[in-house]
């Protein structure tokens, strides 16, 4: 989360030393002129535009961007706070300062509660005071907006978290249903055929493995969400990332009757990455490639350094991904209807984890696929500086 108190997040014109545009909403010409004169003397960086009613002010605000609105409450087309409410509603990002003839604490407080940054009484306001009120109002408003944005983020996060827990509960219950159900079958019938019982236990065991993998994925997702997943990037030789994934894929492909092509990377291609986690990502991509490739197809893994990046390609000659599923495959819990219909096991977390992990390392992941022909995922990671700037070492 960002530090909302840090000044670097505030970009007011005043802070940048630019001209500050003030909209003055005042129906008395004389007083408007007086305000302009006072401000010109106290704060020449302010440029003041005057409007004499709410409707005109609204029109000005919709056409032009102002940094601050100063308004009277006794305007011809809207008296009291009604007019202020309308202005606040039509320009919620604008700080509003009330400058009125009426010295009334109750209305003043009410105005501030309804979004005004300040309530000044004409008779007791001079140029310096007004200039200071304007610059404070702008600052306060920008902090308030930042806080509101922050609150929105927190709320969105809480909502995502709630959805996540509900989805996670659902996903965990599915393997548990088989674990408990098949064990219950065995327990219910002590005289059952041992062969049959063994079959039931095997299903329970398989689902326990599935449950474990799921728990690990859920922890990773949660760690990514809460920033509790420390990545330890270091300069590593690309082969250290690729080789263990290639070994695993070799085994998976042999089991599935799919051929595997691996072109080992040349030595000395050094990337800045968390090797263990990046290997996991490749294993996941290779696991998908094998899952979605029918027997006699092929899966490949190859890598090359290009334009300051290591590009790793995991390709297959499998079922491919329909074009309208492509935008969703990196979403959590997404599995193509095709995958489900064919009863390919999985939860739909693998690619979302892969994307987050790779992006957290300043890398990228892309996909190209043709239904019926195959799919290729490309992961790219930055090379260490020495290599992307040849000659500097």
């Amino acid at each position, binding site marked *: 989360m960002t530090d909302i108190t840090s000044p670097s997040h505030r970009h007011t014109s005043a802070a940048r030393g630019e001209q500050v545009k003030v909209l003055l909403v005042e129906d008395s010409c004389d007083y408007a002129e007086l305000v302009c004169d006072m401000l010109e003397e106290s704060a020449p960086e302010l440029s003041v535009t005057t409007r004499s009613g709410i409707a005109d002010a609204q029109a000005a605000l919709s056409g032009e961007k102002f940094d601050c609105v100063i308004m009277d409450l006794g305007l011809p087309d809207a008296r009291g706070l009604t007019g202020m409410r309308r202005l606040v509603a039509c320009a919620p990002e604008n700080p509003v300062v009330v400058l009125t003839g009426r010295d009334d604490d109750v209305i003043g407080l009410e105005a501030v509660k309804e979004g005004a940054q300040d309530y000044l009484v004409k008779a007791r306001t001079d140029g310096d005071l007004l200039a200071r009120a304007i610059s404070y109002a702008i600052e306060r408003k920008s902090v308030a907006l930042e806080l509101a944005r922050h609150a929105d983020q927190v709320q969105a996060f809480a909502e995502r978290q709630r959805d996540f827990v509900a989805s996670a509960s659902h996903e965990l*219950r599915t393997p*548990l*249903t*088989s674990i*408990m*159900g098949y064990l219950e079958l065995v327990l219910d019938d002590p005289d059952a055929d041992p062969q049959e019982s063994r079959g039931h236990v095997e299903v329970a065991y398989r689902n326990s493995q599935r449950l474990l993998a799921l728990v690990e994925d859920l922890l990773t997702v949660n760690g990514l969400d809460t920033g509790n997943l420390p990545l330890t990037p270091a300069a590593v030789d690309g082969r250290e990332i690729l080789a263990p994934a290639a070994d695993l894929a070799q085994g998976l492909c042999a089991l599935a009757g799919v051929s595997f092509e691996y072109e080992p990377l040349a030595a000395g291609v050094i990337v800045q990455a968390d090797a263990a986690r990046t290997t996991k990502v490749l294993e996941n991509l290779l696991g998908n490639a094998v899952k979605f490739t029918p027997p006699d197809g092929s899966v490949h893994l190859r890598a090359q350094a290009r334009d300051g990046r290591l590009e790793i390609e995991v390709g297959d000659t499998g079922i491919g991904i329909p074009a309208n599923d492509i935008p969703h495959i990196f979403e959590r819990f997404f599995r193509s209807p095709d995958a*489900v219909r064919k009863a390919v096991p999985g939860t739909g977390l693998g690619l979302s984890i892969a994307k987050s992990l790779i992006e957290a390392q300043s890398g990228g992941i892309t996909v190209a696929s043709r239904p019926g022909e195959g799919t290729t995922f490309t992961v790219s990671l930055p090379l260490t500086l020495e290599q992307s700037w040849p000659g500097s070492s």
Partner: protein
Amino acid sequence: MARILVVDDDPDVLALVSFRIRKAGHKVIAVSGGQEALETVAARGAPDLAVLDVTMPDLDGLTLLQRLRAHAGLEALPAIFLSARVQPEDIEAGRALGATYLTKPFVATALLNAINASLEESSAAPTDGGW
């Protein structure tokens, strides 16, 4: 003996539920998705009861039940939802269709009791079909 349609997208759960129901003496037709369920019913005739998963990729169980009930003669098809969704609003949505709602993981006796209760309640007496 009744004819029971079982729909679940998880193959292990589908096999488990079917096994339990068969052992209780019913005829089972097991399918792994909503579309397949609709096609099967169209081709092979009406079941006496449906046991349905809720979260399925092609068609969710609630919609599936409504589509099934749109078939002539199936307007009052009794159903049991068997779902890993356990939020009160999910359960409410299932019951609103007049179905029994059981959550996963489930205990076999609970499922079988619910099946018997639904069959007894439904007016249509089980007939000998083509399954």
